């Protein structure tokens, strides 16, 4: 009997997602309550060992390609069904009690907070170009974002961050799992050396000049942009 098997059995029987920490506590508690050797041997299992075993286990289930998978959402692990079986499971368990879908402005605001957290309301408005009062209210009420501190600037405005509920709502394991995360993280926007003045009305420069003012320079870290260019060349 391996650690992996026991973890599988426990998550199979668990009524809620469990984190490596909770699983560790379960091992410790079980060791105290039983005479069984294996259980006692697992008393001091490390969280890292549990996390590794869970990853392996998830891989096994992925490869077995059954109708369910083992997934990690917001740091906790659980078995979930594959989406294509939703029609029958919906009939079985009834319509999910899921809150109404988020509006477009709410999603945009949430995306900005998710990638740029912690962030002030003013910074969000700067990016979206509109006021976000109502939308922020909704996001706060739904526990998708929270106040996470005060910015060290004049007026000490509130800083906002996403919550674990945000990860749960979107089925994300962690913030790192968000798409294109590195491109959208907080990075200095670099201005090209010189903005070539061209024909009137043309925004920046003719295509050949654009190679210099590449989109990478606009959003990614300068070094990344350079290596990217070198690879291409």
């Amino acid at each position, binding site marked *: 009997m391996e650690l992996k098997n026991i973890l599988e059995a426990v998550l*199979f*029987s*668990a*009524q809620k997602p469990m984190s490596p920490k909770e699983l560790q506590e379960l091992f410790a508690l079980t060791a105290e*309550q039983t005479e069984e050797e294996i259980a006692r041997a697992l008393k001091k299992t490390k969280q890292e060992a549990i996390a590794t075993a869970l990853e392996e286990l998830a891989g096994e289930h992925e490869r077995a390609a059954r109708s*369910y998978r083992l997934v990690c959402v917001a740091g906790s692990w*659980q*078995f*979930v*069904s*594959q*989406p*294509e079986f*939703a029609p029958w*499971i*919906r009939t079985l*368990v009834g319509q*999910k009690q*899921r809150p109404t*879908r*988020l509006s*477009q*402005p709410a*999603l*945009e605001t*949430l*995306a*900005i907070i*998710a*990638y740029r957290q912690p962030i002030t309301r003013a910074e969000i408005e700067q*990016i*979206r*170009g*509109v*006021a976000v009062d109502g939308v922020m209210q909704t996001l706060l009420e739904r526990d998708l974002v929270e106040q996470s501190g005060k910015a060290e600037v004049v007026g000490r405005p509130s800083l906002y961050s996403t919550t674990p509920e945000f990860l749960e*709502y*979107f*089925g*994300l394991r962690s913030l790192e799992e*968000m*798409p*294109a995360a590195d*491109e*959208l993280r907080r990075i200095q*926007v670099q*201005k090209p050396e010189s*903005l070539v*003045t061209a024909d*009137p*009305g*043309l*925004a*920046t*420069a003719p*295509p050949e000049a*654009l190679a210099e*003012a590449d*989109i990478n320079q*606009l*959003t990614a870290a300068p070094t990344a942009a350079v290596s990217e260019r070198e690879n291409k060349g």
Partner: protein
Amino acid sequence: MSEYKVKFEIFEGPLDLLLHLVKKEEVDIHQVNLTKIATQFIEYIDLMRVFDLDIAGEFLVMASTLMYIKSRELLPVEQQVVAEGEEEEEDPRWELIRRLVEYKKFKDAAAQLQERESAQEHIYPRLPGKPEFAADGPVPRAPVSVFDLVNAVNSILKRFTTQEARDVYEDKWTVGEKIESILTLIQTRPVLKFSELFVTATTRGEVIVTFLAMLELIRLRQMVIDQPEPFAEIEIRIAPPEMLAESATDAAAPIATENAENISPAATN
């Protein structure tokens, strides 16, 4: 005017409208003819006026930025006024395009979040039925609440209702003495029934003092209380060794801070 029909969708702000106009031009954001876009943007604002729609302030600010860019570009470079010390002035075109590019990235990210949102609606976590265990092995014991305790002591107090409750003779017992006698008792018999603590009591006062002694011992983590099963009589036992070890650290807490939370540390046993 027919092309304006499609334009009356709801834009989330001036940047959203600008992006829409750029997209219609089918060019890269960096190559877009801002003068042309500026004209279309202002036409849109005018149209909103015609239809008497509320125009948010942000749209007007953007319109004036665009007008500025447009006017600047219509002037030959040598005629543009550059105030002294303003050579390094931010090119308004650049600033606007930077903002557009940034906004577009977040709009795309929002679209991806939206996809995940709807995908999540089709994913169901497994919610197993509770496994049932045969009678082998210990069934978790029911923890006891303060309600149970007070209730229990009440029923014992009822035994004395026939006597004169508001008696005047002084109590022979102190809490400290009762603690000693309970400790002695529990050394010889590791498990006691709740009612057994009170069999020797002869007055209401003694019942109350005994009860307080018991609460104090639980608070000091010298004893734990639980029930073999719901509704069964409460049992009292010596605390397991790890709890006794802990007791040293917080035994100094005054009894006045005691609350219901601490009365049933037995819960998890």
